[in-house]
């Protein structure tokens, strides 16, 4: 897929999937999912060089780790629409006996997921390990990961950041979803992150900023820059500035929809703002 319009159409459909999934079970995390929809759509359909079928080791392809596992709705929707499993299975999100657990897991064997995430702060270490395995396997493909900004409050990230820079893990592009929100409010209020760019740089990372993280073209441009910075002895961080709840006006710019599902009426408004493009599941 290379046409920006196609990616935008897919993103609109993914937004519909997200809203319908969380509405059906009256639980889940729409805010961050909507905020990262463009990014994950672009990642899976344009940026990553990946195989069509799933195998756990992912040798000979780019692989992705979702560290902020609560945005599973967007992850599941993109995986399904990339062909890893039937889109109808999105109907089972968070239901008993489903492979689509509240937070992503390998336990039920859902294709596309390589590690469980949900308890925050663990994904960067896993991504670094996978990146080191790629080097040992002489596999020149890249490891991508996504992390919430609030998630950076977990100390393990800083252990991982120190390791990656100190050991030249330069086949890793870790993206931070800088939406400035977390469950209890703005990150600046809950526990200020300070200057994230300067912090990553101080730890020895190359930082690439994408100031319009909900704009597909800007994402593609920024990620191309990020990719060009790999292989230079340093890990690469992308600071992706997004709007939480993007694409559904009443969910935007607030932490209120971090972990809350829309009611029937709110769903109808959200769907109206995102007309069906590729067909609902």
């Amino acid at each position, binding site marked *: 897929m290379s046409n920006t319009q196609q990616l935008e159409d897919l993103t609109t459909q993914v937004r519909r999937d997200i809203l319908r999934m969380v509405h059906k079970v009256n639980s889940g995390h729409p805010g961050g999912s909507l905020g990262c929809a463009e990014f994950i759509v672009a990642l899976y359909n344009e940026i990553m060089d990946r195989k069509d079928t799933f195998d*756990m*080791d*992912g*040798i000979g392809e780019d*692989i992705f*780790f979702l560290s902020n596992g609560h945005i599973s709705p967007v992850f599941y929707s993109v995986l399904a629409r990339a062909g890893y499993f039937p889109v109808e299975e999105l109907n089972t999100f968070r239901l008993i006996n489903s492979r689509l657990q509240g937070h992503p*897991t*390998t*336990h039920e064997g859902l294709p596309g997921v*390589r*590690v*469980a*995430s*949900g*308890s925050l*702060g*663990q*994904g*960067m*270490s*896993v*991504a*670094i*390990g*996978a*990146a*080191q*395995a*790629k080097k*040992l*396997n002489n*596999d020149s493909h890249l490891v991508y990961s996504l992390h919430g900004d609030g998630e950076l409050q977990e*100390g*393990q990230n800083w*252990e*991982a950041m*120190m*390791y990656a820079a*100190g*050991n030249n893990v330069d086949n890793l592009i870790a993206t931070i979803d800088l939406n400035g929100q977390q469950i209890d409010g703005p990150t600046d209020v809950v526990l200020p992150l300070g200057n994230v760019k300067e912090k990553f740089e101080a730890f020895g990372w190359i930082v690439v900023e994408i100031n319009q993280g909900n704009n597909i073209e800007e994402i593609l441009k920024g990620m191309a820059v990020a990719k060009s910075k790999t292989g230079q002895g340093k890990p690469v961080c992308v600071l992706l500035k997004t709007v939480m709840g993007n694409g559904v006006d009443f969910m935007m710019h607030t932490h209120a929809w971090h972990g809350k599902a829309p009611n029937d009426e709110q769903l109808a408004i959200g769907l109206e703002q995102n007309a069906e493009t590729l067909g609902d599941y």
Partner: protein
Amino acid sequence: MKTYTNTGNKDTRSGFGAGLTELGKTNEKVVALCADLIGSLKMDDFKANHPERFFQVGIAEANMIGMAAGLTIGGKIPFTGTFANFSTGRVYDQIRQSVAYSDKNVKICASHAGLTLGEDGATHQILEDIGLMKMLPGMTVINTCDYNQTKAATIAIADHHGPVYLRFGRPSVPNFTPEDQKFEIGKALQLTEGTDVTIIATGHLVWEALEAAKALHEKGISAEVIDIHTIKPLDDEAILKSVAKTGCVVTAEEHNYMGGLGESVARVLALGHPAPQEFIATQDTFGESGTPAQLMEKYGLNSASIIKAAEKVIARK
């Protein structure tokens, strides 16, 4: 009764180091990670021989466990090395989510377990790790008794797919199991045959159990000693078979009675063959500084305690 010869005291952690050295030569998938304790874990040889497969992570155990999980993606078999305390309690959630729940083929190798770590004291003497690890679904839990068994176990777990917790210790202790043994995960070893009492021991307490059996024999008491190196999955069959014959059990471990081998054995008995049991273990307490021998004496984890417990449990039959 069958007796065992100590071929010379050796530390179990050196058995781990030797096993890892062997694996370095025979299995290219094996990689090792260490959190600033290479010398203590005896990982020097592996590091020297295979620098490209060795990862010094610094004092950052959470990152070490996560990286180990990641290294399995790409087919590596990571062995992590640090003290038992930092291998478990400190990184429980990382092990739970990134390793156990994610079914990653990580081998968590933990030295300096229990009281015999000695002078460093309770901050480092974990007595809860068996419980923490055995409660994780899918986790195999092994506690070896001497150098030879630790070496054999280290080599064996590389061929087992799935997360493993391998627990061993710091001090030099009798080395008495065969050098060329085949280590079978989940298989109890009957060391002596007896009819009056079954002594089920793990780790450093296995030798103490053998010493106790010898003394009991002199008193006319016939003790059957079983070495449980694999606490999970537990060899229920071996336990039930022995207790059907002896009618009572003493369990012995360098761990809190809560969550340890003893409780696992008690469950097997409750379900399959209810029988009196005595627990040689620490009694819901932290340790303290002292020499290993002083600590094992003070906390009742030696052959003298096992003898008393055996006599007591026989009287309860």
